[in-house]
């Protein structure tokens, strides 16, 4: 999918993302892209990817990742029940409901 960006991080290598790959990603993301959208998106994504791929190699092995700017840990709540929504509130935005449940189109696959 992508040429390995240069080890020095400057990434002279071209990163290209093909139409088929975009289609696969759209599939993973559950978006039905039309042919026209695929044609339009693939080159744009290649350009974006090429520019973001420049960070490869910028940080060495020894650099720890930062997921949150301010380091915190052990933020927990006590195991106490607090009032939530009524079923009516919960279902208020539902496109369809039945028997106090969210009505959804037939489900194809199995649970994971």
């Amino acid at each position: 999918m992508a040429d390995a960006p240069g080890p020095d991080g400057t990434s002279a290598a071209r990163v290209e993302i093909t139409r088929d790959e975009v289609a696969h990603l759209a599939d993973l993301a559950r978006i039905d892209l039309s042919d026209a959208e695929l044609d339009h998106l693939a080159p744009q994504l290649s350009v974006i990817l090429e520019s973001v791929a420049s960070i490869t190699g910028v940080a060495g092995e020894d650099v720890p990742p930062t997921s949150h700017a301010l380091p915190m840990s052990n933020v927990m709540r006590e195991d106490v029940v607090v009032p939530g929504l009524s079923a009516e509130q919960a279902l208020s935005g539902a496109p369809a409901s039945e028997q106090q449940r969210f009505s959804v189109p037939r489900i194809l696959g199995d649970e994971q």
Partner: protein
Amino acid sequence: MTETLLSFEESLERFDPAMGLEVHVELNTNSKMFCGCPTEFGAEPNTQVCPTCLGLPGAMPVVNRTGVESAIRIGLALNCRIAEWCRFARKNYFYPDMPKNFQTSQYDEPIAFEGFMDVDVDGETFRVEIERAHMEEDTGKSLHVGGATGRIHGADHSLVDYNRAGIPLIEIVTKPILGAREKAPQIAKAYVAQLRELIVALGVSDARMDQGSIRADVNLSLSPKGDGGLGTRTETKNVNSLRSVERAVRYEMQRHAAILAGGGSILQETRHWHEDTGITTSGREKSDAEDYRYFPEPDLVPVAPSREWVEELRGTLPENPTVKRARLQAEWGYSDLEMRDTVGAGALALVEQTIAAGASPQAARKWWLSELARRANDTETDIAALGVGPADVAAVQALVDAGTINDKLARQVFEGLYAGEGSPEEIVAARGLAIVSDDGALGAAVDSAIAANPDVADKIRDGKVAAAGALIGAVMKEMRGQADAGRVRELILEKLTPAG
């Protein structure tokens, strides 16, 4: 639908099984893992939900401390190491019963890892290595409408209830279990049974397999005998009783063996266990689902249990099950075989509670391993889910001990309990099961038995007291088993022997 199976014996002649067990334990916390919603089983649909567990835009999770505590305690009880620092991760996949379309779980940083459990099978100990135990959340539940009998296939649409979404789960994953050979099915069952026992002892879950608070997935693969490698595995879901764990392993071994022996190859897939037919069927083929795009959950911060906290929790652990079993066996005076049968039936905790409720060890074992184990088998129900609990069993035995009923009548009391006719006392009263020891009623029955069996009566008169048994039998028959046998004997002897 019907698959070709190779016989179990032949399967083993040609292949070695490798097993992996993934057990999901639903914790019995008051509130959900990431929000304050209640966790009651069986509440009205969508009444235990809030913006967070419904995945409404903008809502955020906050970790339940007791959920983490339970996870650590389970980890410690499984001899695991407890992470000094770990995170939650998002497991991304789309499914209508999953409100956010990602499950908040743990990925490469589980809270507990590298443990083991020693499993007893036929008096031998088999060590099952635990790879990890991690925290995650449950999904909602779908009801499939239209089509045939509520099954997902052929349904017209589905109705989703998110009450269960967000309830804390601990997933316990074993390392591949190798070398189990013909004992693989038993080891699988014994592992889940013992794990369940452990969970009960920890008090962290309702541990009801029938309600799904313990769910087992069975991974199985075969490799050519002696090859030492790992074959392609299938993951069988929905294995919701101890008995099914054993059956599912056996079934998949035989199914794999038939395919491999026929030169075919195993499709890596999820399979579904059907309790009613005892087979597995193909579920989802794993295509894109493999790519879960895990990444650390940015709405949560790391969990870094202090060593002090971990030690404090270690102090709350119940007795080690192996040690406890030895202690109980000594206390109860059970033979090795009796103890093994009790454990094997998944009834150890039940027996213990029955004894605690006042029954003698032998009586408790007798009822659980005969009457109730038979019932569980006949109805394909988990022995813990028969609707008859330790208190009931102890109450029945108390009635026997008091002479109100005998063992035979007790079985009828159990029938009443299965049918939900009330407490043992109420059933005895309602069904009129109490033993009759009133001399008036018994005397008449004795007289008619003597009259109907003059030759037997003569023998007794001649001093052959042993012949009384026949007359007692006749009286019991007439009184539908409800006569006090001891008193009947006394009455017969009084009437027929001079000394009487």
